[in-house]
């Protein structure tokens, strides 16, 4: 039996966007513009859009989803994810192409759609449930479960406008989470509530996903995508950039998204993330250099990185100051490169100087790392003079470190720089006590 429940075929969606108006060169043109402008919008709307006024939000998207599959849809903002979900949820029409969906569709693009602030929690459960496509009987049946899940037992007969924002979204999510369609379309709504609630939401989604329901799931949270989806479609500029196995594509995506705020060479003289007073700023420039002295943001595993900081003390003379560079990976502190422990000789920082720190980053696992802090103080425990945080990211790329031709690494923070050996025990020697 053919078990394809969603078949998307060459789906495209075009939007009309605003066009920059041509500047008037002469007074006559400007006057003409003013005379025309009262009806500019009417004129624009009543003719078909020209090529410069259109934006293809989706272009020739084709994919299939099998029954029971949980498909993740990822991509940057504006890559067409939401448009795709809107079309599949029948909120808007495609410009061309078609999609065939077999089964009852429930879509969840927003938490608490249609909540009326004056109505009580209970009343809103009925209202929201009906909007999402539930029958009254179905809501009756699930009411207790929904209230339980949302943890609002005491407030259930209070108007929702008195709810805290947390309670509001919990209730909204809870109603939606009890929808039981064949196909569930979910847009980034799991990130509501506190951590405990998020965990339960994820558990609920997992339960839905494993009960044979087909789920289309959009999220910016890669761990969530990795936890829920077997397959992923990566959208980029309205086209499918990649599709297939989750882990592989998520990696690919992470690599591509990190590019914009990568560090290689940044100007620090007026950095937006400076947390100290701008008048005592000393840092001028930061560069990440490889062994040949080239500024780079991607380094191989085990390849030494040189952090080069240019600074100007502005007439101050600093004896043995503390200069620190802090490296993190997401929330995990990797190390603190500081002059206090790493440099034992007396030194002076004065006037314009270039300060370099070479870091051998022994076999740090591949991935993105944050340079989350750069600071200077007169001595340890003193008031900081100049501090910028965070600065940006750099990448440690994979390398075939074991010479096996494979680049599979385990999930730790380090790729162990070590080796195994195996020797037969030649002879068993009993040692006398």
């Amino acid at each position, binding site marked *: *039996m053919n*078990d394809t*429940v969603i078949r998307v075929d060459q789906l495209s969606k075009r*939007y*009309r966007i605003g066009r920059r108006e041509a500047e008037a060169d002469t007074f006559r043109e400007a006057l003409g513009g003013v005379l025309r402008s009262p009806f500019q*919008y*009417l004129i624009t*709307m009543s003719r078909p859009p020209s090529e410069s006024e259109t934006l293809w939000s989706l272009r020739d998207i084709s994919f299939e989803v099998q*029954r029971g599959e949980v498909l993740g849809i990822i991509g940057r903002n504006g890559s067409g994810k939401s448009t795709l979900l*809107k*079309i*599949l*949820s*029948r*909120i*808007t*029409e*495609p*410009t*061309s*192409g*078609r*999609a*065939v*969906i*077999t*089964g*009852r*569709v429930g*879509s969840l*693009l*927003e938490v608490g*759609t*249609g909540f*009326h602030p*004056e*109505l009580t929690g209970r*009343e809103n459960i*009925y*209202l929201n449930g*009906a*909007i*999402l*496509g*539930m*029958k*009254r*009987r*179905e809501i009756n049946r699930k009411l207790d479960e929904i209230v339980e899940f949302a943890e609002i037992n005491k407030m259930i007969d209070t*108007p929702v406008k008195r709810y805290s924002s947390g309670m509001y979204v919990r209730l909204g999510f809870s109603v939606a989470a009890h929808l*039981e*369609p*064949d196909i569930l379309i979910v847009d980034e709504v799991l990130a509501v509530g506190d951590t405990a609630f998020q965990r339960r939401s994820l558990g609920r989604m997992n339960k839905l996903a494993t*009960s*044979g*329901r087909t789920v289309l799931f959009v999220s910016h949270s890669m761990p969530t995508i990795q936890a829920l989806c077997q397959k992923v479609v990566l959208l980029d500029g309205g086209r499918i950039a990649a599709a297939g196995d989750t882990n592989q594509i998520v990696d690919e995506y992470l690599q591509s998204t990190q590019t914009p705020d990568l560090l290689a060479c940044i100007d620090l003289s007026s950095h937006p993330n400076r947390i100290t007073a701008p008048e005592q700023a000393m840092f001028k420039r930061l560069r990440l250099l490889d062994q040949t002295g080239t500024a780079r943001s991607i380094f191989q595993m085990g390849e030494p990185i040189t952090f080069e900081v240019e600074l100007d003390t502005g007439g101050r003379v600093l004896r043995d100051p503390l200069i620190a560079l802090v490296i993190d990976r997401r929330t995990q502190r990797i190390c603190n490169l500081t002059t206090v422990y790493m440099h034992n000789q007396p030194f002076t920082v004065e006037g314009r100087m270039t300060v370099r720190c070479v870091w051998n980053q022994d076999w740090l696992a591949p991935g993105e790392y944050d340079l989350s802090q750069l600071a200077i103080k007169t001595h340890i425990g003193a008031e900081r003079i100049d501090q910028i945080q965070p600065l940006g990211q750099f990448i440690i790329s994979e390398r075939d470190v074991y010479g096996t031709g494979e680049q599979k690494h385990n999930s730790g923070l380090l790729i162990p720089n070590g080796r195994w050996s195996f020797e037969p025990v030649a002879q068993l020697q009993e040692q006398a006590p």
Partner: protein
Amino acid sequence: MDSELEVEDQAPRDLPAEVKPAGPAAQTIVIQPTSGWAALRLGELWDSRDLLFFMVWRDLKGRYRQTALGPVWFILQPLMSMVLYSLIFGWIAKLPSDNQPYTVFTYVALLPWDFFSDAVNSGTNSLLGSMSLISKVYFPRLIIPLSQVISSLVDFAISFVILLIMMIYYRIQPTWGVLLIPFYLLLAAMAGMGIGLWFSGIIVRFRDFGQVVGFLVRLLMYAAPVVYSMSIVPAEWRTLYSLNPVTAVVEGFRWALLGNGLAPDWKLAVTAAVVVVVFVSGLLNFKRVERDIVDIA
């Protein structure tokens, strides 16, 4: 005319919690661009009757929560316009009221008029006013204007009770024509909604169209015998004048309740036919514009 979403087979309404493999009974939805007129798909509307119920309920319940007078407003609104019009048109301008107490004379007309203008307004604003809902979830969009018309009907029913009390006070006996009241109401609802649905697409595209609608509705009120008697209309214009659906409804109400309005005749049949055309075309137009309305708003 092919619709973008053909519901080919109806699935059983309540699916069990565990998903069954979609056999031939599962519903298949085809999503593709449509051009021209779309099918109305009234079956889908019927399937969403629970939603319709909750939307009406939300409208009625939400409207008067945390107000000092609460549901008294249902009654107060038409009563206040009655007093106002009675003062201005009956007492100051001394417009004729066919020997009826002017208060009852206008109140009888104001009830269907308010209902009609509510229908125009709710039809007009149905898409624009519910954009936050429309852009987030799919349901038959016709539910929105329908639910609003139904909640206006509740307002009407309450005001109607006041009218009955007034009639008892003035000792006015209704005629057997009262049995035609539901018909007149239906006419008012269809005319109002039909016009409103035509406007609904325009107002999303051009917001300032709302000003035009407000003006048009006011104009329509004075073009019908709501605050004055038909007797002041020149005889040669009367046939044309009575083809106005609002005239037909208002005069029908007077005829049924006070016994002195315009009795149903061939002109009413013509009006009714025109109203049906306006209503059905309004529905079709609404279906045509709602399918990509979220892209425009």
